[in-house]
């Protein structure tokens, strides 16, 4: 019983972290049709920026916000000055996002150096919670709470605001949306910035959990791709559900068949691709 509760909780918390990374990737993919390979690197650079803010101000929550905002700005600049010039050129866009992976990785080496680093979580959430006889690391509870708040906020944004409906329209059909008077370039920039913001936020949150290490970006990116494919491009519901699936499958996979950790992770993706290529909640292509 203990095993099940612990693993269920772990799966949820890891899924929550993956959600923050994958949601942005999914939005960008869904709205702009750009496979943003840089996304994992946004996540990692966000962690480093967060660390720097944490060390200067001593405030973890400020680091979360600051890290996310800085990465959002980086994303907006990249979208505005590079990706926009390559609209419609899929290969060119993938290549340039990959180019930015290399550039940003080198920037990390240059600014923060190759030494691994660890971020301290705030003292107020650094304990082991005891709920009904089961112990949970409280920091993971915190990550779940943040991810849930982000999901709720996004839902409100998409469903209750005018701009949100423009975003949904762009996910469904860019040309039609444009014809209906939606300012598509602005939607693109905002979506890209929002996606980068979420990646940066997830990055800072991962600091006290996964640590800061050069190369982590490309290790965590596959998880986000699996979420996008399983959940469907651009779908909030899909990203939430798929993140939980990926988190849980990864956990129980490692629990039951530790030797096949990667197999169990990519199995759901392969199945989905075979029977429902648009993903659980994606639109038909």
């Amino acid at each position, binding site marked *: 019983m*203990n*095993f099940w509760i*612990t*693993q269920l909780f*772990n*799966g949820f*918390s*890891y899924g929550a*972290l993956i959600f923050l990374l994958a949601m942005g990737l999914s939005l960008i993919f869904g709205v702009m049709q750009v496979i943003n390979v840089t996304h994992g690197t946004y996540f990692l650079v966000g962690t480093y920026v967060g660390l720097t803010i944490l060390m200067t101000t001593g405030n973890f929550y400020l680091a979360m916000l600051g890290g996310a905002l800085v990465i959002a700005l980086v994303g907006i600049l990249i979208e505005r000055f590079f990706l926009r010039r390559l609209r419609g050129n899929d290969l060119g866009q993938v290549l340039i996002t990959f180019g930015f992976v290399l550039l940003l990785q080198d920037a990390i*080496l240059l600014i923060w150096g*190759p*030494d*691994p*680093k*660890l971020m*301290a979580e705030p003292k107020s959430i650094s304990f*082991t919670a005891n709920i009904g006889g089961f*112990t949970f*690391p409280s*920091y*993971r509870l915190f990550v779940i709470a943040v991810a849930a708040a982000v999901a709720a906020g996004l839902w409100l944004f998409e469903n209750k605001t005018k701009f949100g409906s423009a975003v949904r329209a762009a996910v469904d059909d860019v040309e039609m949306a444009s014809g209906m008077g939606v300012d598509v370039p602005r939607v693109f920039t905002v979506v890209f910035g929002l996606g980068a913001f979420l990646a940066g936020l997830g990055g800072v949150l991962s600091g*006290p*959990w*996964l*640590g*800061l*290490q*050069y*190369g*982590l970006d490309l*290790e*965590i990116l596959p*998880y986000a791709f699996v979420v996008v494919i399983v959940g469907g491009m651009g779908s909030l519901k899909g990203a939430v559900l798929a993140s939980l699936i990926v988190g849980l499958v*990864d*956990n*129980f*996979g*490692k*629990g039951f068949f*530790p*030797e096949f*950790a*990667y197999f169990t992770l990519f199995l759901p993706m392969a199945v989905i691709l075979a029977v429902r290529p648009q993903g659980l909640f994606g639109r038909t292509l």
Partner: protein
Amino acid sequence: MKRALVGLSVLAAALVLGLILAPRGGAAEKGPIRIGLLTSKTGVLAIHGAHQMAATEAFKDKYGTTVAGRKVEFYAEDDQRKVPLGVTKVRKLITGDKAHIVMGGLFASTGYAIAPLGDQYQTPIFVWSCPDDLSQRKRFKFVVKYFSCSQPQHAMAHWLRQNKPQVKKVIIFGPDYAFGYESSGGFQKVFEDMGGQVVQKIYAPINTVDYGPYIGQFRKDADGMFVTLAGPQALRFPKQYQQAGLRDKYVLVGNGTNTDEFALAAQGEDVLGWITAHIYGGAAYPSKDNQEFVTNFKKHLGGKDPGYYAEGYYGALVLIYKAIEAIKGDVENKAKFMEALGRTKVTEGMPAGPKVSDGYGNLNTNVYIRDVRKDASGKLYHHVLHVYEDVTQFWTYKPEEFLKQPVYEKDFPPCKFCQ
């Protein structure tokens, strides 16, 4: 078009002439000795590469770039932590750069992969890492290595039985490749021969990001853990282990890589008190040779402390110089060079104490049992609890009998007490 053609032919002629007239190296005139170095400068292990390159510079400071009257040139290649790329790079160092010897390979699995190239090209390879079997059942004529992965961990098990006999049931956790299996196997063998029990064995991929699923499986009825962490694992696991509230649950011992100096500063309080065994006593070990090495090293890496990744690189280079001196610089005679490498013995100037060839292509070495402490300024360091001197890769077993058992593998020794 015509002019271009003329230009081209002039260029070609100049090139050919240049090739003919250029001073030629080679055996006859005894050009420089070329040492090829293989490390990981990019990717997840970039930090290890930085340590190894700084160690190389510290080595040059002390021993110079002339040995036995000949100049030495170093060629460093980056394998990006990828085993197949390591093989390509070693091939390039031997055939392209004409290296007389290649040293390096960060991973035990890289060691296994590059070893056959030594015999293929009849060129000595000094495997810096610790793949057990290269000096046991799968020996190559042209390969020597620095230590065996299981070598320090035999001693770790012995120390644990001797000093904490209350720890009887131990969980093994390690990375899912040769380094993990061999370190853990060595521990399990001696621990169980001395009456302990290994009750669970879990191996996780080296690039595991979230350890929650593994940590959640640890058996509650165990009282100790033997942990091996490689590369990035050293950073992520301790934090998550501590967050899971297991700090006081198990007596934790493990591999020296868990708290290597490259990660120690970042690990912080989470590893305070962790006990590890390694062939290096740590940057704080007060021997004169070690402190000299540490001072030299710091100059080349912004005042940072060296760990075993640096010490091993440095030590291997000292041994290579020693062998070159023994054959008076005649490295073109590869067989003679190889033979000298196979019987090196260095007792002075080594940061981690004497290294003596054991005749199997491995070195007998000191093994240090250390724990992590905090000094007055709040900096973490290794305090040496005990030194096992002159430890062989066979521990106290007879080599012939030891070699009859299979190499330590995922399922060897078998987990008799895992129910």
